[in-house]
């Protein structure tokens, strides 16, 4: 056969094969994208894994396309068929086809000139399908989480929150802030919420969980505030007890000691440690015979007070760890539990305890000094004054003062200032926003050089 015909035929076969392979690769890749998009959607709805391995699935289109090209290559039309098609399209009258039987080189000048058949692929459909499938995958990957949650009609991921709430209930139950029956009921309620949580109606679940969380938080805050109050009372009692103990050793008068012990008993009774959520235990025998406390009894009382303080501190720590109370309340609790140096109070009791009216008030104010030393009628403090160093005042931006440079000269006249009928509104200070009543409440600024004129204007004849 004519060499040019042979070359043309080979080019035709090559181009057609390449076109079919490319077409197959595009179609298979589109199918893969569609399939992968469905997998992505299903995985996201089922809540399986993150999106990283799903993105990796996009790379799967490459081997799929290669495999598709291979499959198409294997299924491509037989060479004889393509040669016949080439013969037909070139109008060779079977001469090119006859190559299967013998050499047709002698006929090369008698058949039409070789021409490459035109290949046409209407690719709009396939390419459009590929684009749509890619968009589908991208949409499946980028779909907002809430939409996939909606699609998940039976599951709502609340397990972690339920576990946290369960831990809170357990702590509250351990600390006897919550009754056993109530705790069991809450446990059951949490379990039911976990089982019945639905993605189709998440509000119901979230509201129930929020309610439980709020209830726990309220209970814990109440307990925290109660712990703070009882800690403060215990601290005052501890201060007075320690001072009395030290003063007794230093030779405190009997009368003063008796009055002080009575005040201590009153303090302990007023604190009502047995009431409220947190039931503190103090020895009953000591409380009933507090007026005649000896050193040993005072030591037992002090030990009991310290034990209860320690218990309250642990409770506050646990609640703060579960974030049931905020750090501020925990810090206040810890601060309330710190005792000042009681030696000064003991010395004061020894020296002038007899003049003191109320030992409980003395214990309450002891160590409560501040940088302003308090008001004039504030109780005296016997500690060292607080250092101003490091103290930080609350910054406040003051309104800008009126400056003369901003003043506008309206005119100079010997007549009295003309008061306009418009209401004058004070812009700054405590009266900001207040309207003047007929101008009487408004004070005009009188320049120094006008003071004499004003004085003469208002001068009364004697």
């Amino acid at each position, binding site marked *: 056969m004519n060499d040019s015909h042979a070359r043309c035929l080979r080019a035709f076969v090559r181009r057609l094969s390449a076109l079919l392979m490319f077409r197959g690769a595009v179609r298979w890749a589109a199918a893969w994208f569609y399939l992968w998009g469905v997998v992505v959607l299903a995985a996201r709805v089922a809540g399986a894994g993150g999106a990283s391995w799903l993105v990796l699935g996009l790379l799967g289109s490459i081997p799929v396309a290669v495999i598709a090209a291979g499959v198409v290559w294997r299924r491509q039309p037989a060479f004889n068929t393509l040669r016949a098609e080439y013969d037909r*399209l070139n109008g060779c009258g079977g001469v090119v086809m006859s190559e299967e039987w013998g050499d047709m080189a002698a006929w090369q000048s008698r058949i039409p000139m070789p021409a490459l058949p035109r290949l046409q692929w209407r690719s709009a459909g396939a390419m459009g399908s590929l684009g749509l499938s890619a968009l589908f995958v991208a949409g499946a990957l980028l779909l907002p989480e809430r939409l996939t949650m909606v699609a998940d009609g039976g599951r709502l991921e609340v397990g972690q929150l339920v576990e946290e709430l369960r831990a809170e209930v357990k702590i509250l139950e351990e600390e006897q802030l919550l009754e056993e029956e109530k705790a069991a009921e809450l446990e059951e309620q949490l379990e039911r919420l976990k089982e019945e949580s639905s993605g189709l109606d998440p509000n119901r679940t979230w509201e129930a969980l929020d309610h439980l969380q709020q209830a726990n938080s309220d209970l814990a805050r109440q307990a925290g505030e109660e712990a703070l109050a009882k800690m403060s009372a215990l601290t005052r009692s501890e201060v007075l007890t320690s001072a009395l103990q030290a003063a007794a050793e230093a030779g405190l008068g009997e009368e003063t000691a008796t009055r002080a012990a009575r005040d201590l008993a009153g303090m302990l009774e007023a604190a009502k440690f047995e009431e409220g959520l947190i039931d503190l235990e103090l020895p009953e025998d000591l409380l009933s015979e507090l007026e005649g406390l000896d050193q040993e009894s005072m030591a037992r009382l002090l030990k009991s007070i310290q034990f209860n303080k320690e218990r309250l501190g642990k409770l506050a720590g646990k609640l703060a760890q579960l974030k049931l109370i905020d750090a501020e309340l925990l810090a206040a609790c810890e601060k309330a539990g710190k005792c000042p140096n009681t030696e000064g109070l003991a010395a004061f009791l020894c020296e002038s305890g007899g003049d003191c009216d109320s030992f409980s008030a003395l214990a309450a104010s002891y160590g409560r000094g501040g940088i302003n030393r308090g008001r004039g009628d504030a109780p005296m403090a016997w500690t060292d004054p607080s250092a101003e160093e490091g103290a930080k005042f609350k910054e406040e931006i003051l309104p800008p003062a009126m400056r003369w440079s901003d003043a506008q000269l309206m005119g100079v006249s010997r007549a009295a200032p003309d008061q306009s009928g418009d209401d004058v509104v004070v812009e700054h200070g405590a009266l900001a926003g207040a309207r003047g009543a007929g101008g009487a409440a408004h004070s005009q600024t009188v320049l120094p050089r006008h003071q004499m004129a004003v004085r003469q204007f208002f001068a009364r004849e004697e």
Partner: protein
Amino acid sequence: MTEPSAILTPEEMEPAVGLVRKVLDQLDRILLGRKELHRLVFIGILSKGHVLLEGLPGLGKTALVRTVGQILRLQFKRIQFTPDLMPGDVLGTHILQETGSGQRELVFQPGPVFTNLLLADEINRASPKTQSALLETMQENSVTLLGTTRPLPQPFFVLASQNPIELEGTYPLPEAQIDRFLFRLLFDQVDAEVLDRIISERRRGELPAADWQMGPAELEQLYRTMDRIYLPRPVARYIARLVSATHPGGAEAIEAVTRYVSYGASPRAAIAIAEAARGHALIHGRPSAGFEDVQAVAQPVLNHRLILNYQARFDRISATQLVRDLIGRLDETGLKLPGDVRVGTAMKS
């Protein structure tokens, strides 16, 4: 199918092409205005097939056959078929003769069928019995009478004619016989220009004599060349698919075939197309038959072989129209490309 020993070279083919050209030139010169028809008739002769000529009276059917016989220097006989024509009038008969010794014996008197070129004029006017007398002659090229088979002279062609409009007193050709015709060629009216030439150049319509005639050796040479025309496998496959598609249950039958055709073409039709395609390739000077050769001869080969149903008659659908649709719809190479991929006509670079 007998494969040729080797592909014809241009040098080997050139004499045969020259002979073909001379024959066609003579035909075109003697008979005006029917070049395409002349080629098909000559393809029929090259294919050793019989041709059924269908057309109105006076269109030159007899003249064509006579001219062919004259150019090819073949013995020519004509039978005018009539309703009372008997088989013996066609094939011949035994007559009682007295020999030189005074004895009497039956002597076979050959009929007009014993010739090279037989014109069966108005063949559909004879009774089926007489028409059937030609069955053996057309297929076997022999005549059997009283147990004796007598071969016909070779080559033997039947060129029959029939009138398509005068149907009264006619007998349609039986399917078995009509299938034996290689071609059914339709004689159309010639245009005014040709008529003008006929009137101007032919006194009383008399045909000019052939100034060149082909001898038997040359005809034999043409047949030898025909045998070496190569039929490629894809082309043979196309012929097979085409004939198969004429059957209502064929794998590639179009909807019209399924609807209007009762019976499709026979294997004899496939053979006829293959042979005729070779003849067409020879006429065009090619050593092999291509798809265009098949398409050129498929219409006259198939149009009398499709048996249409009554639905086709009601809808005025002709076999010619069906065959044309079929050729137009059937992919030549069977190249099954996806629907969105097309291979177009080659562009010259």
